Every structure is written in C-alpha cells, then in structure tokens.
C-alpha cells in the first residue's frame, strides 16, 4: 500500500495568516503596507523557483526581460489578493459585477440551480468565484489541493460552508472519482483549468504566442455526465468590495452528435475562453497567479 502524498505547505510560518488579519485590522494603513511590502521583498529573495517562473512568464507577456520591480509587483499582486481572500473569509462583503457579454446565458444557467461545471484559472480574483456561486442557489464542490497552512481556504470554507464543500485532491489518481462523486450527488463543480500537472488529459491551444498545453478534462466530464461547462474569470476593481466578472458562453455537450464532433465544439469553446483570458492577462499581467513554469509549448504534430 502506498502512503498518501505529503501535504504541501504555503510559504511562511503557520501563524502568518492570523498575524496578517490582526495587523490589517489594528495597524495604521501606512504601517501595514510597509510590512506587506517588506514581506513581499523577503518572499522574492527566498523563493528562487517562483522568482524564476515569474521572470519567465513576465518576459513572455511583456515581450522583454522584466525589471526586478516588475517581478516584485507580480509577487505583490498575489499578496494583495491573499488579503482580499482573508478579509472575505472573515466576513467582509464582496460583490460581483458581471460583464454584459454572455451575462444573460450565465445568469440563466446559474439561476436555474441546475448543476454545471465551472472552470476558472489562477488569475485575478477568480479564486473567489466558486464561493460566490453559493449566493446564486448553486451547491458547489471546489476542487482543491490541500495545503497545510491555508487559513484563507479555511476561513472561506467556514463562511460559505452551507453550500460550498471542498474536494480535497492531493493524489491525482483520486481526482476523477472525487469529481464523479460530486457530480453524481447533483452538485456543481468548480475547478481551475490552467495547471497541467494534475490533469488527466491535456490539449494544445493558442495562448501567449504559442500552442500551449492546457487541461481539457472538464469537457470530457461534461460529455460523460451531460453537464454544461462555463468559465468565469474575475479581476479586482479599485473598490476592494467589488470584483469584475467575465463569463464565457455556456458549452452544452450535445449527446446526439458523434463524440469527435462534440470534442471539436469543446475545443472551439475553450479556445475562445483562452482568447478572453489572454486579453485580460495582457491588460493585467501581474494578476497571473501561477508561479510555476508557463504552460508547456506543445510539440509540433
């Protein structure tokens, strides 16, 4: 029998999140910002792999070698979003402004209460979207890697726990069965679809100047379980209590079509999602919260 994989840890001490929340509440803004900035510089110095990945990503998206201050901004944006998650988990109100394109389709799907597969990315405020669906009559299971010191996830789980549950998947072999269980229980599932390491199937799509591999499993699940797929991407606004949400069109797998035809329609759908994502990434380059090598370029056929 193989031992379960060890849970990864977020950087920093276990008490770090509690301290941040406390300092955010009690310290003067200038002091809190100063400490956050110092912490971000320390993180930058102590995380060479993430720093390298950030430089690699920024050189692609900016089309030149990034300056150190730009790598700092990339790290700093993540710290800012971490604070948004901690505050939201602690009860701070948050409101979604849905962009009008595809809004009717999205509202009709979410308002119907019917289960669906919600895809998103490690980008901007998107990590909050699974929780916010619970305000819209959706019972949602969020696919997550269980990390030992993850106070933001714990707080958000507590706040939205009546309708949101986690599918903890640290062993990739368990992922599909965990998803099967949730879908068969009639729940919607929210999963991020940009990291290829845990994905059962990947395919190549145009993204950031190349044909890059992306997870494609969500569409296979849609076909097997006859569930619609919709993507949402969120970015922060100048008001910390509001996020701007971009939804994709809704993909409905048509069971009357041959499998290859459905998959071709799925590929078109996902490419349109990635085109939207790329335009947002280019406008907000520091909000790409993947500090790992950029999605690999597919080998030529």
């Amino acid at each position, binding site marked *: 029998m193989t031992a379960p994989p060890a849970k990864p840890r977020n950087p920093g001490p276990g008490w770090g999140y509690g301290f941040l929340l406390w300092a955010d509440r009690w310290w003067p803004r200038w002091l809190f910002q100063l400490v956050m900035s110092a912490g971000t510089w320390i993180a930058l110095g102590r995380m060479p792999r993430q720093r390298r990945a950030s430089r690699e990503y920024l050189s692609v998206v900016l089309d030149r070698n990034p300056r150190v201050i730009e790598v700092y901004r990339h790290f700093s944006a993540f710290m800012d979003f971490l604070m948004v998650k901690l505050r939201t988990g602690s009860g701070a109100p948050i409101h979604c402004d849905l962009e009008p394109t595809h809004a009717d389709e999205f509202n009709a799907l979410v308002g119907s209460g019917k289960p669906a597969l919600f895809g998103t990315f490690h980008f901007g405020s998107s990590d909050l979207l699974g929780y916010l669906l619970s305000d819209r009559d959706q019972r949602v299971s969020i696919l997550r890697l269980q990390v030992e010191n993850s106070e933001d996830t714990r707080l958000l789980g507590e706040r939205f726990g009546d309708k949101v549950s986690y599918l903890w998947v640290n062993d990739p*072999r*368990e992922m*599909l*069965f965990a998803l*099967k269980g949730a879908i068969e229980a009639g729940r919607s599932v929210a999963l991020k679809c940009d990291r290829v390491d845990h994905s*059962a*199937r990947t395919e190549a799509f145009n993204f950031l100047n190349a044909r890059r591999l992306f997870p494609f*499993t969500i569409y296979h699940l849609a076909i*097997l379980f006859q569930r619609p797929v919709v993507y949402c991407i969120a970015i922060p606004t100048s008001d910390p209590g509001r996020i701007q949400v971009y939804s994709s069109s809704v993909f409905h797998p048509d069971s009357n079509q041959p*499998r290859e035809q459905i998959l071709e329609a799925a590929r078109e759908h996902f490419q349109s999602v990635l085109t939207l994502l790329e335009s947002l990434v280019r406008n907000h380059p520091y909000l790409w919260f993947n500090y790992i090598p950029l999605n690999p370029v597919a080998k030529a056929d």
Partner: protein
Amino acid sequence: MSDPLLLRLKTLIVATLKLDDVRPEDIPDDEPLIGSPRFGLDSIDALELVLALEKEFGIKIGNSEESRNALASVQTIAAYIRSRPGSKA
C-alpha cells in the same frame, strides 16, 4: 469453455471506448487494461468504463482504489462484478 461474462465485458469495453481496431476476442483475459501500451487507456477511459459497467451491471464502484483493482484486467472485472450482490451479471 469460454465464459460468457468475459465476452460480454470485452464487447462492452470495445463499444464504450470505441476501440475500432480491436475485436472483443483480441483482448486477453488477464492483460492489464489501463496504462497498457497496447490499448493506450488512460484515467478518463477508466472513468468512462466504470460508468458503463455501473449502468450495464447495476453496480456501484465507490472509489479509485476499488476501480484500479477491479479494472486490472477483464478477469478482475468479471470477478468484481460476480462479487457484488445484486449485480446483473
């Protein structure tokens, strides 16, 4: 004498996974199905096969460890189905 359940399972595998270039009788009883270079089945195929088996035989395969053990070969699938009370074997 060949086991009719084995042939039924092989036919189901070929039909479910659309193995166009494989005939049911070409699948050995004890050859590993998932991860085998000959059949090239991955975890999505395994899930699809699990759903087809559940539907066809009225069983429930509860978790991935159970499915890995059951789907080791056609023989193990047959043994698994026979071991499930109320299965439509």
